[in-house]
């Protein structure tokens, strides 16, 4: 199966800031590629290049076989973009927003109206169809934005942090839309800071950190990279944490992660947990919990990049990405 998206060595600088420092990525046709990374990683910049909104300083990319710089017009006939900020015209009604896109795409009046009605129905917006979009809730606006991007039946869809700011139900709805798109053979590139989202939806994941690719692979491959399992040790008393960290670091030969009174580290060696328990007991540390589990993508990210993919300041950096663009 061919790649719907192929990018090689993408570099983009905004003045002093290097947003992308040589990014390769590929999405197989009819699959979901998740671009995972914290704020400021360069996700939005990559999407904007692939959507022909920005020219890369170096490197090149092809979408559906067309070059994003030299064949931008062809690329635009294949793609649709849904940004972090719902780009609908707030003064127009839901149906007018969709008619506008349909007409711009060269659909006849009747065809555009048919498609608009169809999409409004699909996205549960029929009742609000003739209300101005400014009266919509955040979730409704996001759905309208997504509907607008699907008017032209794109072959490749970019979703730039589509669930940022959505409640769990909205998130679930969006996930369903993504799965339906893929069922129809559409290729989806989705950026996210949520590990769970990438895990749930993606066939392949590209982890981007500070403008570089930190890792690529399927969710399972990335989890395996961390060493298969995560050992979690929590002492009864927090005052023993330092001792636990010391012992775990020494025996695993790795820098453990400390959070909420628990020390965790990736382990490959099955003999490690008993050895750690033995040493801690000898040191007089009472252990409340010692367990093994599969690593979350969050831990994968931590292991790959050395820092957490914090979602706390969501939106900030991509704001920068935009204004710099």
């Amino acid at each position, binding site marked *: 199966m061919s790649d719907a998206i192929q990018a090689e060595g993408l570099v983009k600088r905004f003045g002093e800031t290097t947003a992308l420092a040589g990014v390769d990525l590929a999405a197989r046709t009819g699959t979901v590629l998740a671009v995972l990374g914290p704020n400021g990683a360069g996700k939005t910049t990559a999407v904007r290049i692939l959507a022909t909104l920005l020219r890369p300083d170096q490197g090149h990319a092809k979408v559906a076989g067309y070059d994003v710089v030299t064949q931008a017009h062809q690329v*635009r006939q294949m793609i649709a973009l849904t940004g972090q900020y719902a780009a609908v015209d707030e003064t127009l009604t839901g149906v007018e927003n969709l008619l506008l896109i349909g007409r*711009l795409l060269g659909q006849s009046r009747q065809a555009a109206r048919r498609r608009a009605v169809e999409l409004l129905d699909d996205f549960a917006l029929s009742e609000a169809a003739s209300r101005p979009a400014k009266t919509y809730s955040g979730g409704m606006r996001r759905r309208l934005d997504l509907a607008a991007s699907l008017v032209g039946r794109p072959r490749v869809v970019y979703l730039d942090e589509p669930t940022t700011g959505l409640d769990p139900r909205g998130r679930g709805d969006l996930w*369903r839309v993504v799965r339906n798109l893929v069922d129809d053979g559409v290729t989806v590139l989705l950026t996210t800071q949520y590990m769970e989202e990438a895990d749930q939806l993606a066939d392949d994941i590209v982890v981007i950190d500070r403008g570089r690719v930190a890792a690529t692979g399927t969710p399972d491959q990335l989890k395996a990279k961390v060493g298969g399992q995560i050992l979690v040790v929590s002492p009864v008393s927090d005052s023993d944490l330092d001792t636990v960290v010391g012992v775990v670091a020494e025996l695993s030969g790795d820098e453990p992660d400390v959070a909420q009174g628990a020390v965790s580290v990736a382990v490959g060696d099955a003999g490690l947990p008993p050895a750690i328990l033995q040493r801690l007991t000898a040191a007089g540390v009472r252990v409340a919990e010692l367990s093994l589990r599969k690593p979350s993508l969050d831990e994968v990210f931590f292991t790959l990049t050395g820092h957490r993919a914090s979602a706390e300041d969501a939106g900030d950096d991509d704001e920068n990405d935009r204004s710099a663009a």
Partner: protein
Amino acid sequence: MTTLAHPTSAGLPAPTSSVSPPAAIRHALTLAWRSLVQIKHNPMELLDLSLQPLMFVLLFAYVFGGALSGSPKAFLQFGLAGIITQNALFLSMNTAVALNTDITKGVFDRFRSLPISRSAPLAGRIAADVVRQVWSVAILLGVGTLLGFRVETGLAGALGAFGLLVVFTLCFAWLPVLIGMLVDEPEKVQVFGFTVIFPLTFASSAFVPTATMPGWMQAWVKVNPVTLLTDALRGLMVSGDVLRPMLGALGWAAAIAVVFAPLALRAFRRRT
């Protein structure tokens, strides 16, 4: 949800490699339609488009008219041309606000990711703004006529005045377009409107004869594009010189377009 996309890619037309000129015009007209539909849903804008000229006419005619010219009617015969000019310039700031709003809200990103003519969003907006200008000039002339204003030169003169106004505002629009690209939020456009357009329209022959102004000001007033445009409109609709001020106004229009169009287009490409 089975209608999201094509079930298969078979039967899709091959993509075209460029936008044909008729398609580009259609894109611009569609976007002009969009910009005019906005008025339907935002009655405040219609009010703004109608009330502002109405207020200009009423205030100038009844507040200044008697003192300046002896009667509101006599004032309008002189001052309506100036009110038309001032209204046109203030209205042109809407172009800047609207473009800036589209950029900051991400609407332009959507347009630019579509296979449409690159210039259509700009052209569509400007076309729609010409329609807005026509509407407010119609109101100005209608209300002016009710209050006693009379075109003394005939239909050809009035149409000529109207044509000149459209040409001038189309060229002048490049300045608001540039402002719309440069400021980081729509509200800041208003500041520009007040600090530049207000003095520009008042230090002119728009509302009063210039004879009583200090000499240094007269020197500016004589070459002020607002003076030239107003004098030409006045000449075309009522009486007075036409050719000299008209050439001057067109010269300014051309100069503004030549300087600001490339700057605006460059900013447009960079910003969007």
